[in-house]
């Protein structure tokens, strides 16, 4: 049996969608080489948003109701007292806009990418000596026995010394508790 998917924007009539476009153009107009949100957030993009977030439809309908008049700025001013409706309207516009491929290319955002972690490389902060600078200041934990900064015999003052400790432990060469 063929099933029919409900169009998520069927709940917004043509007049409401027109009002949506006008608000979108005011909030994110064409400028600085970028297209307007009214141009980008077409029916496809709005469907995408509402398929992901069907809960936005009701506050969107409220934010776009005709009773708030034709003037977009007056509509937004009125919605300042309806934060849930205003937030839904802003989110639908912004999410529709910034999930568009062309907009993402224009702002240089490729999406959340999978980037390989090269944990075998020596981290740059070790090469720059940034860890050595922390170790050179010595132990900074507070010894609960005294309430004062701890004193640790032979605490490593460079990462090379600390790395040697790990190597000795791995090879079974470390002795006892280093705490004073």
């Amino acid at each position, binding site marked *: 049996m063929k099933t029919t998917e409900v169009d998520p924007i069927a709940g917004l009539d043509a007049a409401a969608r027109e009002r949506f476009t006008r608000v979108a153009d005011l909030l994110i107009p064409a400028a600085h080489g970028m297209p307007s949100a009214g141009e980008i957030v077409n029916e496809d993009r709005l469907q995408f948003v509402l398929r992901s977030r069907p*809960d936005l439809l009701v506050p969107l309908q409220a934010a776009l109701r005709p009773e708030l008049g034709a003037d977009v700025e007056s509509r937004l001013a009125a919605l300042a007292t309806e934060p849930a409706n205003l937030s839904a309207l*802003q989110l639908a516009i912004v999410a529709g806009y910034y999930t568009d491929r062309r907009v993402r290319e224009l702002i240089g*955002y490729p999406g959340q*990418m999978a980037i390989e*972690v090269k944990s075998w490389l020596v981290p740059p902060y070790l090469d720059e000596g940034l860890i050595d600078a922390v*170790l050179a200041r010595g132990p900074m934990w507070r*010894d609960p026995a005294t309430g004062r900064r701890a004193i640790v015999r032979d605490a490593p003052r460079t990462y090379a010394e600390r790395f040697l400790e790990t190597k000795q432990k791995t090879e079974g060469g470390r002795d006892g508790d280093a705490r004073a």
Partner: protein
Amino acid sequence: MPNEPADVLIIGAGPSGAVVAKRLAEAGFKVVCLEQGGWLDRADYPGNKLDWELQARRQWATSPNIRGLAVDYPIVEDDTPVSPLMYNAVGGSSIIFAGAWPRALPSDFRVRSIDGVADDWPIDYFELLPYFYRTDRDFGISGLPGDPAYPPDDEDAPMPPLPIGSAGMKVARAHTKLGWHWWPEFNSINSTSYDGRRPCVQRSTCQSGCNEGAKASTDLTHWPKAIARGATLITDARVRRIETNPKGLATGATWLDADGKEHFEPAKVVVLAANAIGTPRLLLLSASPAHPDGLGNSSGLVGKRLMMHPFANVAGLFEEPLMSWQGQFGDLIESLEFYETDEKRGFVRGARWGLAPTGGPVNTALPSRAGEQIWGPEHHLHVRSHLGHGANWGLFAEDLPDEANRVTLSSTVADSSGVPAPEVHYTMADNARRMLDFHIERATESLVEAGAFKIDVDRLMRYSGWHLLGTARMGDDSAASVLDRWNRAHDVPNLYVVDGSCFVTSSGVNPTSTIVAIALRAADHMVESRFEQQVPA
């Protein structure tokens, strides 16, 4: 006909419950766990999908009140500026936690002795150290050994550290100039393949579930092993109350399935692992003529001393692109420079700082946490200058215990099964306010030194109640604590609480590492004392 009693019934399949289940199942105990959520499929997590930022604000919100899923319970939060955050599923809040894995510090267990405030713990850092090593191995921790903010370790983290990114490098250089502490963060996120799980791919969507399985959530790290050793995990099981017998021993739990049908699960020992909101809720729901104020509550402290780590966010904006939408959302680096008490600052105790990525374009374009919103032609300049140009210091302030901060039962709001919801009553203390104000100033200096040209501050973030602690504290005095030093209820000798409820003070660090070390210690004790354990006939 009732089931054969479990040796141990665990309520909650999050981090602490999973640790106890795995340990006890490996020791041969018959373990049953009741979890109100279900199993999730990480292929469904939104982090690698185009609508991630949309779903993160609703279906994957960290607040159960925003998600509103049937498996969640509502939390009445009219009387708190901070909303408690959690997740209900196999894996619990480890599904959505960031994965930052600092330990509590030695001083955290002795704040009465060394700072004259709150209370000392009945246990200390060095007693927990072997458990930290074991849980680090079980969860899979990446980190650089040798942080001088902690005592020397006998065992290094099992994996090398994750990258700290361009933002982390900038701030690390700044702290070198300032002479301030910083260190690559310890995260429960794989930097290499580990224990059958893949390494992190830096997608930064950790709080919407990890698509790679690189973050240590206990649905991956613990439950498969516990189940392989015989543990039974019952999902969609909402516990309504813990039952007791005339001798005052727990006999099991009454629970409701997804269809509302009631069941009873008998047990010799009951372990609560339902977080510091859910656990006191259940103890209070389990009131009976023998326990009129709630189970285990002769001290009157069940639900009291709630601590949530008041949290401020300090965001720095840099001219150069940092690609700061990527990177582990655990943390890139941390600073404990101002963690310990210095009375000249006008408050006691301190805060941990964690430097985190900054989110994608939807997050950047919408009004900021600090309330800034830019529309019109300037919107495009705003997004171009902000997206990937930020570095955020998150500041976790130590929350001192206060009995007025508490969890109670609602008389008007209930969950989808009709069980009364918890009410949270919480006020941020003046000490914490002064602490956060001081740390905001220092974190601003840090980012300015790193080159930030603009700073945005959210002085107390509402949706920041990740760390739920203290509502069934441990202690040696049964009149002044709910649990003993082994996490066993003073009043009910076969009832344990192993989640963050047991905390005496909050420390100022992300608590999961410490919670699970304490839970493992409690489980070891259950194994060692199994032949002396009182159980119902």
